[in-house]
């Protein structure tokens, strides 16, 4: 049989077999396996006491917030220790239980128990102000900082760098509080509306971590679009649980917080979502890449196998690219032994 005949037969086979491919097979084709390139800390000066929240500057220096040590570790792109920023306290330049961090416009924005502190990239203190409600997420821009926090029924609030509140927008989820016996309304609101704010040039995205709703606003706060992440069992179960069934406080203070994702990050027109361990195990994936325009999942990344995923506690994701243009995924996690920052590519 000559080559032309073989090619012809191959095409006929493909023609008849193509309809037999299910949508799951097509989805699997979009799954990419990422490999561990580097793991931090690699310096004896750095020891994390908890899983750090991380941010990157343009030179790929890493800013890792250690909540228990009340400091920010600044590491270079190879994980070498550069400096510590902040110390425990409530004064200017001090941090008390810091957690959320973001780097923008050559400044570090970090949220702690009492306030928002702004440092320059060398760690010099610039400013500090308070926001008065439990913070959900923060997203700095060139002249403003957007906060997700529930205040007077609104969820997103814009402040200038001096702490002057400018305007508020976005409505919180409305829920029948009666189905939550034993919990305060404020606490329920905070749990249900948990999510991540992402600044994308002319837009602000707010993605809710329990229900996978994506709200897109312009910078003035007008809602442009609202979409739900591709529905799966996980989200449907959450909607049934949190909006219909509710929860009773049995006195142990345990609230079933079944998050779809731990963290999200916006980079070059794409939204990256770091799935929580249960959600990741339900679909066998760890990071979803959504297109900004369609808000649909266009790539799925796998970091771990099932047993590894059960052991790892993920926290924070930052995406950037190396000099060849390949995406680098910085993920902070607890791997059942140590608190580390891993780089995958």
């Amino acid at each position: 049989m000559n080559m032309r005949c073989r090619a012809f037969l191959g095409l006929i086979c493909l023609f008849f077999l193509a309809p037999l491919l299910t949508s799951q097979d097509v989805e699997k084709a979009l799954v990419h396996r990422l490999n561990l390139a580097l793991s931090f800390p690699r310096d004896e000066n750095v020891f994390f006491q908890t899983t750090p929240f991380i941010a990157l500057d343009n030179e790929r220096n890493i800013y890792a917030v250690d909540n228990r040590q009340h400091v920010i570790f600044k590491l270079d792109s190879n994980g070498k220790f550069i400096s510590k920023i902040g110390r425990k306290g409530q004064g200017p330049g001090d941090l008390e239980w810091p957690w959320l961090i973001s780097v923008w416009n050559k400044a570090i924005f970090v949220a702690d128990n009492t306030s928002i502190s702004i440092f320059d990239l060398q760690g010099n203190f610039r400013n500090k102000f308070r926001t008065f409600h439990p913070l959900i997420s923060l997203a700095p821009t060139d002249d403003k900082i957007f906060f997700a926090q529930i205040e007077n029924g609104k969820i997103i609030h814009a402040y200038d760098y001096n702490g002057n509140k400018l305007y508020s927008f976005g409505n919180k989820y409305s829920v029948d509080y009666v189905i939550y016996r034993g919990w305060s309304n404020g606490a329920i609101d905070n749990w249900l509306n948990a999510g991540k704010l992402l600044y994308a040039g002319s837009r602000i995205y707010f993605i809710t971590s329990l229900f996978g709703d994506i709200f897109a606003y312009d910078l003035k706060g007008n809602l442009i679009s609202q979409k739900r992440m591709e529905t799966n069992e996980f989200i449907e179960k959450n909607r049934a649980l949190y909006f219909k069934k509710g929860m009773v406080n049995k006195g142990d203070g345990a609230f079933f917080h079944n998050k779809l994702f731990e963290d999200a990050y916006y980079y070059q027109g794409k939204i990256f979502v770091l799935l929580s361990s249960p959600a990741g195990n339900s679909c066998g994936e760890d990071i979803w890449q959504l297109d900004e325009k369609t808000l649909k999942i266009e790539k799925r990344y796998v970091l771990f196998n099932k047993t590894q995923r059960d052991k790892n506690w993920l926290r924070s994701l930052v995406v950037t690219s190396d000099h060849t243009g390949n995406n680098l995924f910085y993920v902070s996690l607890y791997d059942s032994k140590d608190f580390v920052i891993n780089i995958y590519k």
Partner: protein
Amino acid sequence: MAVVFYYFAKINNCIYLLEKQIRKLGPQYTEIGTLLYFINEVNTLCRPCAKYEQLKNDYFRVLFLVKKDYSDHDIENFAHSFKILPHHEIQRMTDAWEHVYKVCNSNRRGINYNFLIIIDDKGKIIEIRRF
């Protein structure tokens, strides 16, 4: 020796120091019931413990004492966030008030709590709530 011990016990007594400081506020705070809030941090989940919403009315004078380093924006945002009535006052703690706060707040865990102090119309403390 007993006198010295009594003296030190007195100057480290939260209620004694509070009442002394309240008297210095002036008669307008002791003629009608007063609510005194020591505000250290408010973006915690235990914040709803202090029911300002339920307590705010014209029968109480309300004074919020916030930390010294609160900026004008902080005070403005604080008033806006909690819908504080315009005739209720927000002041920064003076050194003397800060000393009283530290004495009242002393605890083994080193946690900085907020306080609500309810004062009757004779300047006596009825209740101290920590939240």
